[in-house]
């Protein structure tokens, strides 16, 4: 039976259909999880997609954590279930306290929409366990608030615990320590700014998102 993957839909999400398409491509049975329902409906993995949840009001991700589904997502994560937040989804997970740190505005003062190279720094996470350690993946980014930051103690902890799972080869947004993606202590919650669901076909310019998406299912 195909693994069931829930893709959370907030008012203002805009990458959920891309993610449904991409997860179908790698053999999952994807479905939408409406933010107003306080359940993850027994899925095997949860993805919080990109967009502008609740209009990014107050701060990106700040209102989303009050949606009824986030309690269920937190419980799912606490039980070890795979949770991946992409772009705005990463912002939502930091604001919900499922991942440390915050995403500030890009250092270069510009919205950045381009293909970047990511180095797989750790394969010990639900998003990278099927990728090759040290390999370089071409995956697009598309954000204004993607400049990851955290305090010095948190950064030291992330490094010491091998929780920086993806780094930019060339830093596009000023992120501290070139961080593109991190995971939680349990390694089952991952947040990243790049969009692996947009790197799933040669027609899109790259298929390097596929090993990441497959990892979620393995």
């Amino acid at each position, binding site marked *: 039976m195909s693994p069931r993957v829930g893709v959370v839909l907030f008012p203002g999400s805009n990458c959920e259909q891309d993610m449904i398409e991409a997860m179908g491509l790698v053999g999952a049975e994807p479905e939408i999880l409406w933010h107003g329902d306080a359940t993850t409906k027994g899925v095997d993995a949860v993805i919080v997609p990109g967009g502008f949840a609740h209009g990014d009001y*107050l*701060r990106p991700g*700040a209102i989303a954590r009050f949606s009824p589904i986030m309690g269920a997502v937190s419980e799912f994560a606490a039980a070890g279930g795979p949770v991946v937040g992409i772009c705005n989804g990463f912002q939502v997970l*930091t*604001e919900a306290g499922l991942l440390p*740190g*915050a995403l*500030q*505005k*890009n*250092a270069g*003062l*510009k919205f950045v929409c381009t293909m970047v190279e990511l180095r797989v720094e750790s394969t010990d996470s639900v998003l990278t366990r099927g990728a090759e350690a040290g390999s370089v993946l071409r995956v697009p980014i598309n954000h204004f608030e993607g*400049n990851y*930051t*955290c*305090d010095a103690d948190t950064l030291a902890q992330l490094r010491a615990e091998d929780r920086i799972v993806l780094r930019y080869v060339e830093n596009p947004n*000023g992120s501290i320590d070139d961080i593109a993606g991190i995971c939680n202590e349990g390694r089952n919650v991952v947040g990243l700014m790049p969009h692996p669901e947009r790197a799933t076909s040669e027609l899109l310019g790259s298929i390097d998102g596929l090993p990441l998406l497959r990892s979620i299912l393995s």
Partner: protein
Amino acid sequence: MIFSVQVEVRLRPGIADPQGSTIERAIPTLGVAGVTGVRVGKFIRFDIDAADEASARASVEDLCRRFLTNPVIEDSFIELSAGAAS
């Protein structure tokens, strides 16, 4: 007792502020020289009903810490006065 609350949310020192930088770079084109240190924040106002000023302030500080700011990147500055503003 009703208290009128004003919360200024500022980006912490060192946090990127593209809006502030862009405004600062635009100002000289208006012929005004010498403007530096432009930072753009947020201003949030509301009224709160509480037993006294200390408990009102405690509630507002809690709101700032848990919701109105992200303490990783923002600081809050609270002003509180007796009586509704609206």
